[in-house]
């Protein structure tokens, strides 16, 4: 069905289609619309889930852990400080191998209070064992949320998935949305290690140095296997519903001399910049990174690269720029732009390309080293 929706409403619509048994959530701007919309579905009887209005995000994730282990599909949504507040449980969910799906509406961190887009919240959970996908349109928010359940619950993965969408720039933007009849796209929830009183097991007990690392390796093994599962699920989704996705979305990259790499809405904006640059005779392309974990292999042979980071690792550099550099050996021009919702237009992105200095870092809007 074709409608018009915000990014938040698109996520809620996908959750409704996935029919989780339990949803536990706590409001935070700019995510609140997701949990409000889901509460409306549940109250109206359009979604038969148990809705737990928890008292904090730490408890939201703890409740999802208990529910998922108890044997039902679970969902939560958060943003920024909410994500940081649940950090302990974010690790726990992955370590407990639970296929929880969480929407994270990317937002900056205080102080000062800033509710605008930034990717530092998600990147602060980089090493937790969650799969992370970043979307750029309302349609993609819907599609990625649906696929997230299937990927997370696949027996070769059994890890949680975080679907990231930019605060306001996508969460509150209206675009067209085509919802689908999912049919049997999502199989019934099956967790091989669900709690079963007929087969009493102890979960997460004290585990010594001779065993602990094996469980960690098992997470990494599943992360590696997840690449194939993601590709299969995205292929099946394309066959069934006609929209295809991959680890990156490449735009005019085939013959490009210089490629812009960015994530989320800035990655989409870069496509317009590429068109402008092409008009000027600069052979530019754009590669929007969708999957941040597992991090994809990038084919950038013999190109110059401009990376836009909407995040920063203090005392180190742009997180994405360094990831690209360590994965490809290419020293990109690293641009730090869009922090806390700082406006970055396609003209600005085109400027980054025109004025690039490979191997260097610049902060957009900061002219000097002050």
């Amino acid at each position, binding site marked *: 069905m074709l409608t018009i929706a915000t990014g938040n409403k698109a996520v809620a619509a996908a959750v409704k289609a996935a029919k989780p048994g*339990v949803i536990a959530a706590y409001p935070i701007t700019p995510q609140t619309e997701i949990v409000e919309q889901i509460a409306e579905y549940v109250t109206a009887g359009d979604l038969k889930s*148990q809705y737990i209005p928890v008292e904090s995000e*730490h408890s939201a994730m703890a*409740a999802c852990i208990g529910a998922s282990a108890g044997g039902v599909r679970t969902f939560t949504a958060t943003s920024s400080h909410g994500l940081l507040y649940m950090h302990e449980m974010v690790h726990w969910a992955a370590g407990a191998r639970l296929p929880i799906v969480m929407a994270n509406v990317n937002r900056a961190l205080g102080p000062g209070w800033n509710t605008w887009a930034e990717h530092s919240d998600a990147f602060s959970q980089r090493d937790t064992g969650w799969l992370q996908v970043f979307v750029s349109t309302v349609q993609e928010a819907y599609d990625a949320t649906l696929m997230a359940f299937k990927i997370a619950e696949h027996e070769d993965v059994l890890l949680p998935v975080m679907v990231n969408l930019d605060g306001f720039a996508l969460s509150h933007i209206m675009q067209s949305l085509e919802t689908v009849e999912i049919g049997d796209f999502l199989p019934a929830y099956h967790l091989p290690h669900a709690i079963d009183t007929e087969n009493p097991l102890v979960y997460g007990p004290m585990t010594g140095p001779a065993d602990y690392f094996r469980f960690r390796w098992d997470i990494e093994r599943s992360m590696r296997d997840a690449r194939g599962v993601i590709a299969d699920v995205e292929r099946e989704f394309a066959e069934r519903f006609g929209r295809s996705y991959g680890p990156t979305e490449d735009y005019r990259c085939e013959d490009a001399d210089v490629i812009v790499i960015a994530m989320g809405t800035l990655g989409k904006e870069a496509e317009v910049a590429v068109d402008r640059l092409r008009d000027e005779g600069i052979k530019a392309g754009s590669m929007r990174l969708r999957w941040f974990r597992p991090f994809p292999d990038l084919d950038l042979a013999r190109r110059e690269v401009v990376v836009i980071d909407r995040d920063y690792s203090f005392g180190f550099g742009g997180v994405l720029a360094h990831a690209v550099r360590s994965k490809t050996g290419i020293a990109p021009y690293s641009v730090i732009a869009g922090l806390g919702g700082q406006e970055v237009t396609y003209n600005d992105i085109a400027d980054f390309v025109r004025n690039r200095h490979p191997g260097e870092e610049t902060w957009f809007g900061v002219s000097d080293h002050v």
Partner: protein
Amino acid sequence: MSAIPKEEYLFKCTSACAGCSSSLCLRYVLKAAGPDSVLVVPACCTSVIQGIYPGTAMNVPVYNIAFAAAAACASGLSNALAALGKETNVIVYAGDGGTVDIGIQALSGAFERGTDFLYICYDNEAYGNTGMQRSGATPLGARTTTTPGGKPTAKKDLDRIVEAHNPPYMATACSAYPLDLYKKVKKALSIPGPKFIHILAPCPPGWRYPTEKTVEMGKLAVKTGTWILYEREFGKLTINGPSKAAMKRPAPLEEYINGQGRFKNLSPEIMDEMRQQVEQNIQRLSREEAGVC
């Protein structure tokens, strides 16, 4: 005692200290709950006494969870079981630290939401797992590794905090009275909604008394009126047998205090304050039971 089933859900191979009363209580809790039960356990001594992977002393499913998260995790589990149409008991077994300190927010939230589960706090009056630091439940004057001079403030009144949530059932218990505990767990599990049991669980290394005195220590807590056994069903208070007598004629507080190393060299002022606290508690609960408020 003949009413108590012979089936064991906590085997003898635990790694609890000698004379540990909280593990003894867990044994009775599980006998009352039976095999269709799941235990949710935050970081505490109970995470240790289960044993180390791949071995376990437990014979019901145990979900170990982070220190602050027990009540919230149990909430999710309880709702999942409801979604699946199962009537499995969900029981939190948490220490005092995981209840009155770091876990109190999750506890409060779960009770306010009316979660169908039983929350049991076994209270050894300190952080046992990490080597006996003070908790909010440590009594006035008690020495712990972080209150080497004795705790300067009173024990947090957890039961009145829980009471403020109006749960359908709440009770206190003590490890020295296992049949009383057994009955309370049975009763709690027969009632839907959030239930709470607060067990005083003497701890030989923490309280610094000889291991063979564990039962005696619990009895003295009750006989001196320091710990009062009661039930509150839909708001109505009933004082239980052993405490009825103790509240009329409490044994001298010294009988309880003097046997414990943690109360060594208490000043007369602190001792007076403790006596007053015991007296106030007895009066408050007696008045309430008699319907005089």
